[in-house]
């Protein structure tokens, strides 16, 4: 069974973290929302990878204010910090948030940053630094974090041995919709730590009766009742203790403890018969739990007090066997952990897909190494180490995949090079030819355009003559020149005819000047359209040509660099995984060795008790 504090905080985290404040809005930036898509699935590496890139690109653009991320940049910066926090990168998260704090930001943003920084310090077990960060909050505190700020402050006071200050803060939070149950419970603990037991009991009693429906609130209510029951038992208020412990739900993670204490409350009131009920229930439960072990001894103890020595002897006998079975399991677990099966089991894909899988692991007959994983998870250190190990395994598989990707990239580049390199010289030669033609046509168009523009200022009818007319004019000029030195009447008649023809030609050109000028402009417009198509094709070709080169040139250095980086990271990571794995195995073996010693002690006690009860039963029968 998980330690109560740990289990409780896990439940709280599960409910509250994914819908954290930084993730509540929908920014109109696809890449930011893509990052959120990953974050909502608790895939923080992918979320960070996406958002880091997006923010870097945002700051790299020439006009960031035109970028879709611009209105959400503060939100995005915060989210990066949050994702880093969720991804257990406290150092980076702290630096990112400190950067926001040092920047020129508005008061609410600054206060949010200070709150986040305080959370990071607190999670890193630096409560005094956390308090200093909280002290930076002043002025306008955003509504959505106001309760959380005070709740965190109270927790820091509790962690630094200032329960009276915590009481002052928590008293104002007990009516909070989101934090009410937690605040009331913490208020009870703060009062207890402050030596105000009666008030503590009153608060815990209230916390134990809150109306709740969600898992976290139900869990904190159960925990309140359990602590309250324990305190009442201590104060010899057995009846009240029973009532409080009865309020713990049977399916609650705290029910084993509650059933055990409930039995002890009955025993303390010398009501052994009643103690049989909770202990009988508990003794039938999952045998890896320490409370269940205790109940397996306590139950026959209650029977022996009721002078039912025969039943007690049977139950002690069952306990001896059960502890023996359990010892076998523990020994098998330790052995399997020593040969490395534990780490293999931890990296099973199922663990990542379904957190409840940790619970199912103990029912796998072929994997004794994981019987006690759930118990080990009670330790925060083990949880952190396990999570780190899983993260490392995740990174390792990414790096291995990337290494393969880099090899594939090299193959792609080699194939592209083999395809393009022989083709490109001929393509370039043809292109140069076409390029020269295209440039010539562009020059010609430009020249025509200039002439037409000039004609708008200085009309020039000759320029608008058709080629046939120009040829005709030339021919007429030639004929005129041939006739120039002839003085016979026939030549004179021919000269007159030539003159009329020239006149007719000039007449046509002059009278059609405006129409021809208009047509010329229309043709130029049509030419412009064609030139645009030519330019577009030209540009497309240039892009395609550049893309062809870019598809295989310039990758060598970055790919080699990445190969080295991935290789080095993989080397470091494997070393780190080995260290982390060794640590996990050591923690697990230590824990299981302790459990083995406890079970051996239990088994010895059960054996003695069995013999004693057996004697008494035999004597009673003889009488």
């Amino acid at each position, binding site marked *: 069974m998980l330690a*109560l*504090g740990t289990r409780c*905080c896990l439940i*709280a*985290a599960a409910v509250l*973290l994914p*819908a954290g404040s930084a*993730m509540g809005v929908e920014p*109109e930036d*696809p890449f930011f*929302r893509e990052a*959120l*898509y*990953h974050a*909502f699935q608790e895939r923080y590496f992918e979320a960070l*990878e996406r958002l*880091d*890139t997006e923010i*870097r690109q945002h700051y790299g653009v020439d006009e960031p204010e035109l970028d879709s991320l611009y209105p959400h940049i503060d939100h995005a910066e915060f989210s990066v910090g949050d994702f880093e926090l969720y991804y*257990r990168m406290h*150092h980076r998260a702290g630096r990112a948030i400190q950067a926001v704090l040092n920047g020129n930001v508005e008061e609410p943003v600054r206060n949010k940053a200070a709150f986040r920084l305080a959370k990071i310090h*607190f*999670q890193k077990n630096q409560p005094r630094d956390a308090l200093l960060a909280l002290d930076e909050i002043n002025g306008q505190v955003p509504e959505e974090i106001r309760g*959380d700020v005070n709740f965190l402050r109270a927790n820091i006071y509790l962690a630094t041995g200032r329960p009276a200050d915590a009481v002052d803060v928590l008293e104002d939070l007990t009516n909070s919709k989101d*934090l009410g149950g937690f605040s009331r419970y913490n208020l009870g603990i703060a009062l*207890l*730590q402050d030596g105000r*037991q009666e008030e503590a009991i009153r608060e815990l009693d209230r916390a134990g009766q809150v109306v709740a429906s969600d898992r976290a609130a139900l869990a904190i209510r159960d925990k309140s009742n359990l602590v309250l029951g*324990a305190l009442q*038992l*201590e104060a010899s208020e057995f009846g009240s203790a029973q009532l409080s412990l009865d309020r713990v739900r049977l399916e609650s993670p705290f029910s084993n*403890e509650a059933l*055990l*204490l409930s039995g*002890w409350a009955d*025993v*303390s009131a*010398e009501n052994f018969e009643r103690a049989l009920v909770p202990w009988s229930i508990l003794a039938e439960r999952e045998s890896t739990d320490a*409370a269940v072990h*205790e109940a397996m001894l306590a139950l026959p103890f209650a029977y022996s007090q009721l002078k039912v020595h025969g039943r007690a002897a049977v139950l002690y006998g069952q306990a001896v066997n059960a502890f023996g079975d359990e010892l076998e399991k523990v020994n098998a677990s330790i052995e399997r952990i020593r040969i490395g099966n534990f780490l293999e089991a931890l990296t099973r894909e199922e663990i990542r897909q379904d957190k409840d899988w940790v619970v199912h692991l103990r029912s796998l007959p072929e994997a004794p190494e994981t019987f006690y994983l759930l118990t080990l998870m009670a330790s*925060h*250190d083990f949880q952190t180490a396990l999570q*780190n190990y899983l*993260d*490392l395994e995740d990174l390792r598989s*990414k790096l291995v995949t990337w290494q393969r*990707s880099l090899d594939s*990239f090299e193959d792609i580049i080699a194939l592209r090079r083999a395809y393009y390199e022989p083709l490109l010289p001929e393509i370039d030669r043809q292109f140069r030819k076409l390029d020269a033609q295209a440039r010539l046509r562009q020059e010609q168009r430009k020249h025509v355009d200039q002439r037409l523009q000039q004609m708008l200022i200085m009309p020039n009818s000759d320029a608008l003559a058709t080629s046939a007319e120009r040829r005709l004019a030339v021919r007429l000029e030639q004929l005129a020149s041939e006739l120039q030195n002839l003085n016979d009447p026939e030549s004179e008649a021919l000269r007159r005819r030539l003159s009329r023809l020239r006149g007719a030609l000039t007449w046509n050109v002059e009278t059609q000047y405006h129409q021809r000028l208009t047509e010329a402009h229309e043709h130029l417009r049509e030419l412009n359209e064609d030139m645009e198509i030519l330019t577009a094709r030209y540009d497309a070709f240039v*892009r395609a040509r550049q893309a062809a080169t870019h*598809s295989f040139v310039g*990758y060598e250095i970055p790919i080699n660099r990445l190969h080295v*980086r991935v290789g080095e*990271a993989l080397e*470091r*990571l494997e070393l*780190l995984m080995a260290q982390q794995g060794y*640590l996990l195995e050591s923690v697990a073996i230590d824990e299981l060795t302790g459990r083995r010693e406890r079970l051996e002690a239990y088994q010895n*006690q059960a054996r*003695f008790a069995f013999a*004693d009860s057996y004697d008494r039963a035999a004597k009673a029968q003889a009488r």
Partner: protein
Amino acid sequence: MTAPHMCTRLARCLSASLLSDMRTRLQKRSAMFFCSRVSCLIAFALLSGVDIVPAGAEPVTKEQMQSLDEQVQEIKSDVLGIAAELNGLEEKLLYPSSTQVAVFVSLGEGEAFRLDSVQLQIDGVPVAHYIYSFKELEALQKGGVQRIYTGNISTGEHQLEISVAGKSSGGKEIAATESFSIRKDVEPKLVAITLAGQGSGDALIQLGGW
């Protein structure tokens, strides 16, 4: 904390009722166990993912763990850096901006319909077929956007066909197929698909750009 007093009280109570040495041993064990259990109970609730470090942990182990944790953080940072560089390289190599097309899927605001699958065809060629898990659907409902496809198309007009299957909040099957014309220019083309269940057995598929 008053746990020691509690132990004494319980021990006194139990010792009165225990008759043999064995029972005394049991009583002592039980009382001690009970005592440690109660002291375990007294921890305040946190609303964060990490508990307060428990007292009594081995200092050497604690230091080792902290040191390892810091190294893990460093390597995470390094790997994120590698991922960023690799993404840049991959985009340049596989999806150059002149041909890149990326399709994003999101749900309309407040949509409660259960999206089962989305299929995409570009110019009649199937390019993506995605079946959604519960977690993915939840992420979409919270406002996340899924990049369902990244690929390459030439500049110009293209036909994008989107097929959606799911169930309305009332349990009714929803299926719809829509065709849209998209234009690819020189810059990367980002296509946004927004889905909504209309409750009439049809799904509303809206196309937009980012």
